[in-house]
């Protein structure tokens, strides 16, 4: 991804503005653009990147949402659609029961009412307010954790890129010292994002790297320190203890660090996502979820279950590999995109 390509993206100004909002920074002046292109936001990008599911959720949704009275069969179809999006049984039943009661009270009569009510309730359940990450630390330390292969390193690279576009000085700590070549991968991202990388040799103590990164960030007057950690399955108690230790060591430089801890969650994850959020949250308090790989057929409904059951909201969502594909999360647009009958 070259800088020219990023700049040529039609919605670049709007994208960056949304990132500025996320971090409570001033929106950069927007380049002159044609009106229609400017509106290309989260929703259209999600629609674009989501494939039509093969197992036929779309026809069911199309029929459910069509301009006719909602019938008894629709509730089963709705349940299937929610389960098919990985929302899990508990959350699915909650939503179906709620919508049924709304229909019972006469507030949902026709298909389009059902569609609107579904999008609204899913959006509200996921996050009633737009997400924010306040940059009030000196520097603000953001730690990124998650299971193997969820996309932590890529996420850090993309956040660093956006922050540097917003004139923030960024230091990245390569505390994934375990996975082969993780440091090299991060190096590439640091260069793209114009961030400083604090690293040690592979196999080094991750706590020491995190400590160095926060100390370096402080010494160099950085605005944000992003700390990458090794992927680990949440059931590995020793590795979860290590994560606790990494967080604790940073607290020695700044008692408030890490200010934010983000759990990176692959959108293809099924019900195991609950276990991930619960056990990672027990090790280090989570401030939010980064939902990655919301492309292809993945609906990421497990994030809704996580928000409902554990209260951790989605902060960022990734719809693809390009740097502009990671976006501050828009719950309402998300709901509309994953339960949309007209995605082609």
């Amino acid at each position, binding site marked *: 991804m070259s800088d020219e390509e990023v700049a040529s993206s039609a919605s670049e100004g709007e994208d960056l503005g949304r990132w500025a909002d996320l971090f409570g920074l001033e929106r950069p002046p927007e380049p002159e653009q044609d009106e229609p292109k400017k509106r290309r936001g989260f929703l259209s990008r999600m629609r674009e990147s989501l494939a039509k599911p093969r197992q036929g959720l779309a026809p069911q949704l199309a029929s459910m949402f069509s301009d006719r009275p909602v019938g008894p069969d629709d509730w089963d179809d709705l349940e299937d659609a929610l389960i098919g999006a990985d929302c899990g049984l508990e959350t699915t039943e909650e939503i179906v029961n709620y919508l049924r009661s709304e229909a019972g009270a006469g507030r949902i009569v026709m298909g389009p009412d059902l569609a609107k009510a579904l999008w609204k309730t899913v959006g509200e359940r996921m996050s009633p307010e737009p997400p924010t990450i306040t940059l009030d630390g000196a520097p603000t330390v953001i730690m990124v954790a998650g299971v193997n292969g969820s996309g932590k390193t890529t996420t850090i690279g993309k956040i660093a890129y956006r922050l540097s576009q917003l004139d923030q000085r960024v230091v990245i700590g390569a505390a994934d010292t375990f996975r082969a070549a993780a440091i090299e*991968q991060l190096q590439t991202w640091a260069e793209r994002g114009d961030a400083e990388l604090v690293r040690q040799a592979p196999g080094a103590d991750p706590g020491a790297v995190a400590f160095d990164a926060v100390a370096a960030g402080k010494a160099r007057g950085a605005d944000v320190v992003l700390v990458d950690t090794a992927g680990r399955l949440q059931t590995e108690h020793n590795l979860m203890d290590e994560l606790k230790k990494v967080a604790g060591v940073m607290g020695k430089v700044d008692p408030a660090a890490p200010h934010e801890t983000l759990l990176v969650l692959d959108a293809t994850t099924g019900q195991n996502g609950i276990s991930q959020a619960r056990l990672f949250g027990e090790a280090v308090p989570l401030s939010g979820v980064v939902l990655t790989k919301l492309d292809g057929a993945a609906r990421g409904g497990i994030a809704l279950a996580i928000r409902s059951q554990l209260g951790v909201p989605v902060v960022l969502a990734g719809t693809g590999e390009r740097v502009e594909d990671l976006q501050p999360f828009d719950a309402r647009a998300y709901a509309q995109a994953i339960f949309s009958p007209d995605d082609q």
Partner: protein
Amino acid sequence: MFDALGDRLHGVFSGLSGRGKLSADDIDLAMREIRRALLEADVSLPVVKQVTNAISERAKGAEVLGSLKPEEQVVTIVNEELTRLMGETNVGLAMASKPPTIILAAGLQGSGKTTFCAKLARHLQKQGRAPLMVACDVQRPAAADQLEVLGRQIDAPVYRGDGKDPVKIASQGVKEAGKAGKDVVIVDTAGRTSVDEEMMAQLVDIRDAVDPTSVLLVLDAMTGQTAVDVASAFSDAVDFDGVVLTKLDGDARGGAALSVRAVTGAPIIFIGTGEKIDALEAFHPDRMASRILGRGDLQSLMEKAQETVEIEDPKDLQRRIKDGNLTLEDFLDQMRQVKKMGPISQLLGMVPGFKSATRGKDIQVDEDKLGRVEAIIQSMTPEERRRPDMINGSRRRRIAMGSGTSVQEVNQLLSQFKQMRKLMKQIGKGAIPAGLAEGLAGGQQLTHP
């Protein structure tokens, strides 16, 4: 969070008196619970429908046999049906009759392809083969570096080519293997999303360029409902021959295994069970069925024990256990052996009934505490270890000082050890608690109060 299916069905059938055929209503109720259990294990919805239909058909005609509880019988049917759907027996990796054997690994981003390639290379090395790995992932930064680092760890060569054109790298890699006298070529490819047509086309090009013996789909065991879409997309594009299920060392129930097999018919060949490069195992459908149903996996536990535990003189140890003469030395030795098998919490998860017996409670074994116990025993003299009864107050104080623990901890260990010795003696005499014995034999009774 997950109750074993047997427990739930027990609830459904608890009102059922008398024997004879299950009524249609009973079966409907049972099917609802089975559906829930399968969905919670991430089996894809269309596959759940298919499976519950098959189970329901079988259950309708089934007599409830005198000795079995209805829920046990239904669980047996479910288990058999899941096992059948996953292919009954383990399928091995096909080798070319004329070398080299070429294996192409494909899958979504982050499913674990690169790690799998190295694990497979290691696995084949152990069988006396000489693998060459080819790094065709030019997309992800440093992917080739990762493969190379892993290759160095196991002393297997990696071909990187120009690092630009994956199709060219693949075909040159195969030539390279011929020159270097390697009999297996393992081709790592870039991760992709199922809808990325460009990347999918590239995968097809690589396949056509190297004509692989097997194309393997690498799939994350934590995959949810998407598994069906992913499997059919890859099946349509490259028609894979087998599946590798990764990250099964966690607590994912792995319903994706069932979905993929049901939709594509391709067998699951390997499972990835850990971060270590040796953590690759053959797939066993019956064990997977148990896992999906939350029934534990005693067989894998036994195998793990046989692989890692070395007992110098098992007969002698058995005799001492029977006579109640177990020493603290034996205890320390056992503890170390168990620790070698992996995290204790993981081992406990394999014991049938354990998950449901402890349902809701997060049982965590404090591995630190085990370290303290080890320190206490090590601070004892050999004589004290053999005859713990001789450890009096002043000896306890010395041991506590020496191990950096407290007298209370030493006391606690000694009294626990005494109890254990008593229990062992009872077991040795054949007075095994009934529930435990049945639990070990059938994996059922332990879950019922």
